């Protein structure tokens, strides 16, 4: 038999314990783990711009922002993701490694993650009751999709210039700020 390998269902506890010592980060969806890949210079520049623009606003409101290395748990999907940028405001949400009540999540799209970010993660992040906005930010052109919680579910607004409102942080953010010094954009 040309058996390459067998995979077994992994419990959330096994996954969380493994992540403390694993050499690469993994995301977890209902028994399966998926290794994360490195990112581009532009991807990273955009994340830095988000931190510079939004962290002071977040902290003024008693919230905190985190990037790339902190997990968000989606209980109803039995999933753990590492968002590119996340803002958490709930004082009761204090675990050292996992955020359960984010107010804002941002993913910077790349060719290998775009479909997952726009489909799977949009659905699963939408299941988090505290989440007010989910942003996907393109890195090959200026384009931000703002998914907001509506009565029926998440609805989207698309921006390619100008500025948009973030209800989660009660502020306006411009695309110039998000794409500052991003090469070619």
């Amino acid at each position, binding site marked *: 038999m*040309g*058996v390459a390998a067998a995979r077994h*269902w992994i419990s959330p506890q096994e996954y969380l314990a493994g992540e403390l010592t694993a050499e690469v980060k993994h995301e977890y969806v209902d028994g399966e783990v998926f290794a994360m890949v490195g990112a581009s210079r532009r991807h990273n520049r955009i994340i830095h711009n988000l931190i510079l623009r939004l962290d002071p606003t977040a902290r003024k409101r008693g919230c905190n922002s985190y990037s790339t290395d902190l997990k968000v748990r989606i209980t109803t999907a039995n999933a753990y993701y590492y968002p590119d940028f996340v803002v958490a405001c709930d004082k009761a949400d204090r675990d050292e490694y996992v955020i359960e009540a984010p107010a804002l999540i941002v993913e910077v799209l790349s060719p290998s993650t775009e479909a997952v970010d726009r489909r799977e993660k949009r659905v699963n992040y*939408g299941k988090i009751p505290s989440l007010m906005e989910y942003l996907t930010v393109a890195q090959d052109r200026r384009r931000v999709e703002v998914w907001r919680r509506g009565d*029926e579910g998440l609805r989207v607004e698309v921006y390619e210039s100008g500025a948009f409102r973030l209800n989660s942080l009660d502020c306006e953010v411009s695309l110039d700020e998000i794409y500052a010094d991003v090469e070619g954009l």
Partner: protein
Amino acid sequence: MTLVGTSRWLPPEEFLANEPQWNRRCEYVNGAAFDVAKRDSVHDRIVENLTKALTPLAEKCNGRLDTSGVKLRVEAANAYYYPDLLFTCEERRADPVVYAPELVAEVAAANTLGVDMREKLAAYRTIPWLKEYLVIQIDSRQADVWRRSAKGWNCVMYGVGGPFRLESLGATLSVDQLFD
């Protein structure tokens, strides 16, 4: 404010009614529609080889194969997908939607691997009738067979070489045969 576009949450009934008029196939995932990813000739060849191998077995057990022409409804995920191949024994319906597949297969290229291995795996596993989910990975020439067992789902990954079984159809296949 320069807003380029907005879209509200799309109800599944509206997707189902409107998608045939869009002139392109779209998958639906809980409120939003996405273009079906482009497929190349290697992809089509693998689907063809798989279909050729499975058709006689599907006929023998009074079921039918469908390749990319029908939508698959996944109730728990509120999704409609176009799988590359499925096998079902349910009656043909007036609307081209399948609800109860026993086997689903996806041929995964770099642009669909994330969706096939993550989103669709999680969604397909919620279909009560599904016995097996086959993912054929083009780049690594590998076949992953996900199978429902008494203890949940498990996966065996097969590389180039020896044969593997699809219990849902009693088929014996090989990775080489699919990539022929």
